[in-house]
């Protein structure tokens, strides 16, 4: 209750400040209300400064990021520099890196075999993920045909793609509309020449799709090992965004823009980004 009342006070201060601001235009005296208003922001900044997260906590979060996102080399170096214990199971990180690299490189058969080597349960139980990987593989097969120099590929060039689709993807297709639609779209890649494709088809050829699937695969592997499927820092950022939203909804006086400090632009842009002051 006390906290709520405090929020209300701040809100009223702000209101007062706004009305006195207009009044100030005709007077040149230093305005106390304005200083009140500034002090609320200042108190936020001060509070931020007062929060001194321990360096080891921050280092831990960074290490966690490197481990779960799969940067074994960096993790090792970081461990040396910060005197943190190195990642416990470097091999398991490297396994994930190999899978990720294979997906990014379009070598899907290799990726699937690697995943099955880690734990065959992953793809055996997660049909959607398995389907996505197979779909990517089909896309890669089609891509090689499309990429052949020369005129339009002959219909027979696509035979391996059709064979693959028949054996690997089709059995699952009728079980759910989402599989069927995905398969149909992918097959459509064989019909349209790349330059005439609509964006929804182009999307399939975009390598961004590989990255998306790779992230899902990484998560699935982490989960299969009973680990957190996401780096802690991602959760922290989400929690921050949520808290900011809640605070704004409760009309707590906050700077309109609180930089994360991740982008260079943030550093240059108005740290005191309150439009009202200017």
């Amino acid at each position, binding site marked *: 209750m006390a906290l709520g009342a405090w929020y209300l006070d701040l809100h009223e201060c702000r209101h007062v400040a706004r009305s006195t601001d207009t009044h100030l235009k005709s007077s040149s005296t230093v305005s106390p209300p304005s200083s009140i208003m500034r002090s609320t922001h200042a108190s936020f900044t001060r509070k931020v400064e007062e929060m001194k997260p321990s360096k080891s906590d921050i280092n831990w979060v960074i290490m966690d990021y490197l481990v779960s996102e799969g940067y074994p080399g960096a993790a090792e170096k970081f461990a040396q520099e910060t005197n943190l214990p190195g990642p416990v199971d470097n091999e398991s990180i490297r396994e994930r890196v190999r899978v990720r690299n294979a997906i990014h490189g379009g070598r899907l058969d290799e990726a*699937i*075999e690697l995943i*099955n*080597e880690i734990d*065959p*349960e992953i*793809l*055996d*139980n*997660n*049909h*959607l*993920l*398995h389907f996505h990987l197979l779909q990517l593989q089909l896309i890669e097969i089609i891509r090689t045909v499309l990429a052949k120099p020369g005129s339009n590929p002959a219909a027979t060039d696509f035979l391996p793609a059709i064979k693959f689709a*028949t*054996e*690997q993807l*089709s*059995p*699952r*297709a*009728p*079980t*759910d509309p989402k599989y069927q639609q995905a398969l149909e779209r992918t097959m459509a890649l064989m019909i349209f020449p790349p330059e005439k494709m609509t964006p929804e088809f182009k999307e399939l050829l975009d390598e961004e799709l590989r990255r998306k699937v790779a992230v*899902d695969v990484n*998560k*699935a592997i982490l*989960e299969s*090992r*009973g*680990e957190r*499927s*996401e780096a802690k820092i991602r*959760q922290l950022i989400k929690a921050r965004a949520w808290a900011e939203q809640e605070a704004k909804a409760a009309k707590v006086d906050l700077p309109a823009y609180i930089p994360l400090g991740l982008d260079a632009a943030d550093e240059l842009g108005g740290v005191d980004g309150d439009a009202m002051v200017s």
Partner: protein
Amino acid sequence: MADTLAAIYPMGSMEALPEVELEAQATALRMLKNEIVGHDQRKERQVCDGVVDMLVGVLSLHQRTTGSRKSDANGPTPVTWSWTQKDEVRLQATFVICTLANGGAAFVPPLLAAGMPQVLMDSLAQTTAPRLRTATLQALWNIVSAWSALQVDPGEAASTVCVDILTKQGIDVLSGILRSTLSDGAHIQQLQLRLIADINQERRGLSVFESITQGGDVDHVNALCSWLLLLARSMQGHSRLVALRLLALVNNAVDADSFDVGHRSEYMQKNRERKKQIALLGVPLAAKLVQMASEGRSSGSDRSADHDDMLVKEQACNVLALLVRDFDELQVAAVDAGAIKHVCPILKKSFDPVPPAKPMWSARRTAGNADSTSSPPTRRPGSQGLPPETLHAMRCRQGALQALAALAEKEDVHRKAIVEAGVVPCIFDSLKPFPPDYSTDDKRRGQVVGPKDGNTTAVLLAACRAAKTMARSVSLLRTSLIDAGIAKPIFQLLHHADPEVQLAATDACINLLLEFSPMREDLIAEGVVKTLCSQAKRCGLGGANGDLRLRVSSLWALKHLMSASPREIKVKTLEELGSGWLIGIIRGEQQQAREYVSAPGGGVSVGLSAPNAAGERVDLLNPQSSGMDVDVDEADPLAEEDDEQQYGNDEECANDEEGDGEVMFDISSSTHYQASQLRSTLNKHHHPPTSPTATQVPAFNSRRYLSSVRAIEQTPALRAQQAEVAVQEQALDFIRNLLNGEDCASMFDHLLQLIGAGRIFDVLTEKLVPVGIDPATGSGGATSSTRPIYGPSALIISTVNILTHIANALPRHKQLLIAQKPLLKAWLPHFIHPDRKVRVACVWAVNSLTWIDDESDRRDARQRAQELRACGIEGAVRRLLGDEDLDVRERARTGVRQFEQL
């Protein structure tokens, strides 16, 4: 694919398979694995091609060759582990098995035909390599869970396949792994723990956990529980559920184990702290998972795995039930956390129709099963079982019913809340089995088994339990339960083919047959008397425990039926049972039930708590009259039924509320009594380290002694004896209720006519004399001990209450009773029985005997009083004027006054 198989398993000797060929074998297995992962149709083809035999061959062969470095599963994992090519082959083969078993129920018959569970267990015993161990456990778990799907297939009712991995050896291996797992907490071990917990859940086996908690002291257990709580809180989704399940199993195992009398109050204090911790930290987590399952929310932050959510939905309620069952404070904690609010929608939702999954497509025509009968069983996939959606609904329903049964166990408020949630009709619907002609093969004819078509056996059992605990509320019995028409489906389940269902339905019947139950008439009209009587009589001689459980429950229900029933019903029931049979049952058809007494040195019995009248667990903190008693609570399947007794017996007992335990050794009288559940079997091998006398009592608290007692208790022979005593108790109470009421005199005349006075009183005397002594001569017998050992006090109470009823009949019946000299002699020692309930019953009986019916009876009454004085009973009553129990004192005062008025 035949080529691959050939590459994997070349015929001939593999003993000296060179490294190169091993590598080729591993590669071939790897290829096979990649071929079938995620492709169920290919799995089926592989099985038909004989892959199962090949895998068994590979695994058992390499086990033999790697036998030289047979590992010690109990020891710590070696730090340096060299992964050999043979390990690699085994790993890949195990992966293939994992994947095959994931294919579902159809793959269970071929895997079992090949003896795969045993092969895997052997493999588990021989390896400490974490990867291989994890994969092997995973494979076992996959087989067990596929098997459990097969179990619920209504078309496979007669299925005889069973997975029996929890053999003695299996338990040793698993608990060995658990021990090493608990000592180092790497994530891979955590995963193993999860798998083991799951395997155990499927088999409902506590054994593995009992074996780790056994010998551990309360601090150890509390630390383990705290760690599991921490683990549960740090995890998400299904893993969290598994941690909670482990917590429940450990807690239940400890509770069954709780007899450390040495530092009793400290021990109890620690037990209470643990319960409190679980109530505050564990139960709300379980309730939260139930809520998530109920609201269809994903349990993790952003999980991609539907599989995990599905498992949470199916199991959250079960885990909650397991946690709170038998602990009323935890039940309250669960309801406070909103359990009823969230469980009920799950139950309702399980009846919603689900769109059946569309079948997979195949480029090839699926080969007809024309030649399937000719192929060996290891190459023949079985039925796919229920459609997965229906199976899911059944599992959710079963879990929700279990949770409701547990929540409604003790608190009437909870039962009312359940009724208000409107799920009583769902319980009713859950009592209907699938129609007998239903078969899952029907789906080939275009018919699909949906969630509304019936219920699996597991659901039926859970529904019976829910009905049973709900029916403990008298007001519900007379309102919502009768409205829902719950009696009819339960009656029909009495004729179900599965003996477990029969038993559960009988248990549910017990409360429906109570005097004030409006369903009594309906059930009688349906023919419940005949059914129950034939059930009671059906079990064969020397039958298994299960048979006796059905006998106990049936007699229990009939006992309820006897109370305040019209004379015709009583006569008819007695006729149906047969008076000869009844007497035989009370005497104990199997005389070995009397052999247990030969305790060397008159060993002290470590007793179980008797079921008290209110069905409460015995409160160990409240000191008993003698202060030296040893009482133990046991999670015995029979004891579970105890609370039904609260309505059953006649008024003398009905207002006994306070809890008490069996007192086994009464210091003041130096009398030894047997626990009601007959725990006194201490044979020579398990002789307690000390010969207990009053001064030596603290010595018998040693853990070694207790674990030896425990070991004996778990013997099947003792279990059988416990069941035997329970049967006798119910049979005696049947007679007791038969004689209770207005028509007491005419019923007793009826008994006299049927059985004969001599036989009746012989049997009653037999129940009162020390065990092992010939009632006729009053001497000899198996025990030459100077201290007599008496039968369980439950039997003595029942017997004395029958005496009361006889004494309440006509004056001539009183005279008949007083003429039984051996009976009076046998009765006398029980006036100083350490159990106050026995003493009260004794005085009641005397008071009835000295009661003057009318003027014409006065002379006879005086004569009866003289008889009682002559045999010392009057003196015994007078001594009870100074009894520590108020009730006993008051009754004794009345008794003495009646003596003086004569």
